[in-house]
């Protein structure tokens, strides 16, 4: 009996998204997971991304020091000691790529987290309260959306990175932290905020549109008539239902932020050498392109592969979660 009802729900789900969601809230995710499993590209992408993360955040700790220079061993060919050879300063390329990946992936994830937090809250409030508040809040978003994002981020980054240097010094002096670690950490911090602070705009619009339709639905009426406060209805009943589009958008935002990090670092406004990030590595590699193209190409491949994986994963998630949008 139970399995029968489930079958009905999932076949109906192909045609009527709203019914599926209204009847069986949790089975949306199960359904999505099943659909996702059929999408080979998305699964391969997920595996690639997980492997990259394991390499960068796990395996990297067993590798050589990424900023240890050895000027007698520049541009070394791959060997047992240096798996991918060394760069212009005699630093181990393999470990620099992995440590660079830590920074790049972390920037992508944390900046997305910042953007999602702001975007969902802002969009939900705007959609939920509607009328005047909504009009004003959305005009603000429209205005900010027309502003050249990268330019403001560049200026903001210039402001924040100076603070990060001061903070780093202060922490080392007062808390006695390891200097290299502190430098590396504070070097990246401004990027999280510079990117996250401006990346939430589109998401706010998406969430708002969702909330606008959700708040008219019966389950919200039911929750309100049970005497729940407005905020509780919003945060416990409406926002969880906007999670699908949010997850999809967030997955597609991560590669965007990784690209921004690389761009900023390439311009000399993001992560700074000797710290490593994929943007830095590509920038350094471009200088020796004619003699040692592997310095550009190897980090470039892992960088592009990660972006590939995340983009395909996002596409797969969208197809899986949003029945209406999937055309196949």
């Amino acid at each position, binding site marked *: 009996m139970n399995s029968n009802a489930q079958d009905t729900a999932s076949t109906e789900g192909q045609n009527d998204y709203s019914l599926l969601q209204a009847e069986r809230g949790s089975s949306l995710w199960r359904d999505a997971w099943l659909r996702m499993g059929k999408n080979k590209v998305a699964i391969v992408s997920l595996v690639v991304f997980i492997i990259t993360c394991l390499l960068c955040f796990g395996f990297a700790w067993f590798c050589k020091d990424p900023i240890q220079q050895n000027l007698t061993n520049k541009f070394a060919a791959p060997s047992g000691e240096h798996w991918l050879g060394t760069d212009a300063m005699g630093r181990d390329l393999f470990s620099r790529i992995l440590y660079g990946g830590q920074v790049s992936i972390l920037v992508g994830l944390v900046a997305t987290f910042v953007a999602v937090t702001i975007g969902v809250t802002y969009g939900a409030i705007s959609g939920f309260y509607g009328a005047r508040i909504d009009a004003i809040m*959305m005009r603000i978003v*429209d*205005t*900010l959306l*027309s*502003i*050249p*994002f*990268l*330019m*403001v981020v*560049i*200026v*903001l980054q*210039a*402001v924040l990175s*100076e*603070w990060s240097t001061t903070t780093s010094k202060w922490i080392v002096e007062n808390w006695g932290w390891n200097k290299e670690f502190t430098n590396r950490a504070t070097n990246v911090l401004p990027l999280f905020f510079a990117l996250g602070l401006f990346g939430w705009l589109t998401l706010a*619009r998406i969430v708002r549109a969702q909330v606008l339709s959700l708040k008219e639905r019966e389950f919200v009426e039911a929750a309100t008539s049970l005497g729940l406060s407005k905020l509780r209805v919003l945060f416990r009943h409406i926002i969880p239902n906007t999670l699908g589009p949010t997850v999809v958008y967030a997955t597609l935002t991560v*590669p965007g932020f990784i*690209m921004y990090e*690389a*761009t900023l670092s*390439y*311009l*000399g*406004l993001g992560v700074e050498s000797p710290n490593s990030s994929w*943007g830095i590595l*590509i*920038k350094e590699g*471009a200088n020796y*392109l*004619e003699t040692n*193209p592997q310095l*550009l190409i190897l980090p*470039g491949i892992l*960088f*592009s592969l990660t*972006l*590939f994986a995340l*983009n*395909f994963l996002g596409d797969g998630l969208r197809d899986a979660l949003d029945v209406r949008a999937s*055309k*196949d």
Partner: protein
Amino acid sequence: MLRFIASRLLQGLFVLFALYTITFFLAKAMPGEPFTTEKNLSEESKAYQRALYGLDKPLLHQYLIYPKNIITEGSLAVSTSKGRPVKDIISQSFKVSVVLGLSALGIAICIGVPIGVISAVRRNSWVDWGTMAVAMIGICVPAFTIGPLLQIFIAANLPGIKVAGWGNPQDILLPAITLGLSTAAYLARLTRGGMLEVLSQDFIRTAHAKGIPASKVITRHALRGGILPSVAFIGPAFAALISGSFIVETIFQVPGMGQHFVNAVISRDEFLLLGVALFFGFLIVIMNLAADILTGILDPRVRITGNSSK
């Protein structure tokens, strides 16, 4: 339509003002001073310089005097790092940037839209998968990887095409391709999505049923609606091309505006910074407006409500 344009222009002015406010206060918050880059100036000459540029005035005064000067005198103040009027600097490099940006956009449209249409029509075929995979490469490989690779493989092998520089007409080619590739990829994906949406609608089936040749159904009936997402994207795309041009200008040594912006940030030259930012903002507002008008012409539904936010 006139009312629509007027309200959009008003919103554009508001955008520029917001951009000005954000950039102004961020520029003020930037640490360091504008006059430290040259020789070691004495405190007095620094103070003299500050007074000369009006940087000693109260913050609010500075905040208000700049837009006032733009409106009354059309002046964008003088660059503190270059000692020349910002207007001159912009008018010199502006042509380069626009030529580069527009040719990149042209390349992007010429590559992206046909690819999108073809892969939508041949959906789920090898053509579709192949072109979409290539499009994904265009999105995922950054300009600063593609640029150097093009330099190595094309400029080094083809006579007449230089690795870097600006002056001859053919010098545009490599930077424009580098700049336009990711936009082409986005356009291809957007066009494919838009076309798929339209191709599944009833009026297309009707057109086929009436016996109109398939090629005509696609170009006359489907493309008009299918291209809408791409048209709406062109405004932001132009903005992205401009921001992307920082990088491409560095790689190919193109004397455009992007380098001025980055240099202005590095040398704490707030007037140059404001000037370039506002000018870019102005271009983007105009491009967005053009995209909105074009959408209105293509899609009557938008025109009536006068609201392009979907």
